[in-house]
């Protein structure tokens, strides 16, 4: 007697894969960090250049409430000639030991102690109005409730376009907790520039 090995198929409709099999359930909550009114063209993505990279760190003391399955974020941007689209943008997240960037932050985070890194989504970001821009993840991030969190965004558009605006940020509590690099022709490598321009953000979990 022979058996045919038929795989058991479990419906995945409506489920979003997470970065870990044992993640806190989604609670439809949000955590807002920021609220500043400063602006900079280089924050989140820099439309003046073909390619750009931006990263920021949030402390465990700011990410209150313990573990979270982060399903998306919203970032605050303003001043764009709408609609304005960044094509081929990638968002990644990870736990990080450091609380600030060093003086020469590496584009690839190779100078930091980062773990559990996931690529949350690759998408085209169209800004239709000033305000918080919704970014829903394809892969959720399981925040452990104790580590600092690093988020990076790669703007792989490949062309610059006028009409770009700015990201809004809160200068004071984010000293050296943001970094960026932008250039034409090829995606930036090497080291970027650190600053205090950590974007206003909403974590959805």
């Amino acid at each position: 007697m022979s058996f045919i090995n038929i795989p058991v198929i479990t419906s995945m409709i409506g489920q979003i894969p997470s970065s870990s099999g044992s993640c806190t359930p989604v609670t439809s909550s949000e955590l807002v960090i920021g609220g500043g009114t400063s602006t900079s063209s280089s924050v989140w993505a820099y439309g003046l250049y073909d390619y750009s990279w931006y990263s920021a760190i949030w402390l465990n003391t700011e990410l209150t409430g313990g573990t979270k399955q982060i399903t998306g974020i919203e970032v605050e941007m303003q001043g764009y000639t709408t609609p304005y689209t960044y094509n081929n943008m990638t968002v990644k997240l990870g736990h990080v030991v450091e609380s600030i960037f060093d003086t020469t932050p590496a584009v690839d985070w190779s100078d930091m102690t980062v773990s559990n890194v996931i690529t949350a989504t690759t998408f085209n970001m169209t800004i239709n109005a000033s305000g918080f821009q919704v970014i829903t993840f394809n892969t959720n991030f399981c925040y452990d409730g104790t580590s600092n969190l690093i988020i990076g965004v790669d703007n792989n558009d490949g062309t610059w376009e006028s009409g770009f605006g700015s990201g809004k940020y809160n200068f004071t509590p984010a000293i050296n907790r943001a970094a960026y690099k932008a250039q034409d022709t090829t995606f930036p490598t090497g080291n970027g520039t650190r600053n205090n321009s950590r974007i206003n953000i909403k974590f959805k979990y």
Partner: protein
Amino acid sequence: MVDRENLIIDISAHGSVVYCDENSEVNYVVVMEGVTSNKITLDIIVDGYVSADYGGSSLSTLSNGVYKCDYSK
């Protein structure tokens, strides 16, 4: 208000002007290709026209003959 016409005339002697205008409500952008001068020379020229109206932060780069500057209010 930025004297755009004379700014373009002045910087055209140093390369091809791709963009020279208000980029949004809050910033002014200049982009040039085939630049034959150095960054400081262009920074001084642009600054003379733009900084009075856009006195916030400014950033400029010159790489592979492409000059870009971004002035914010």
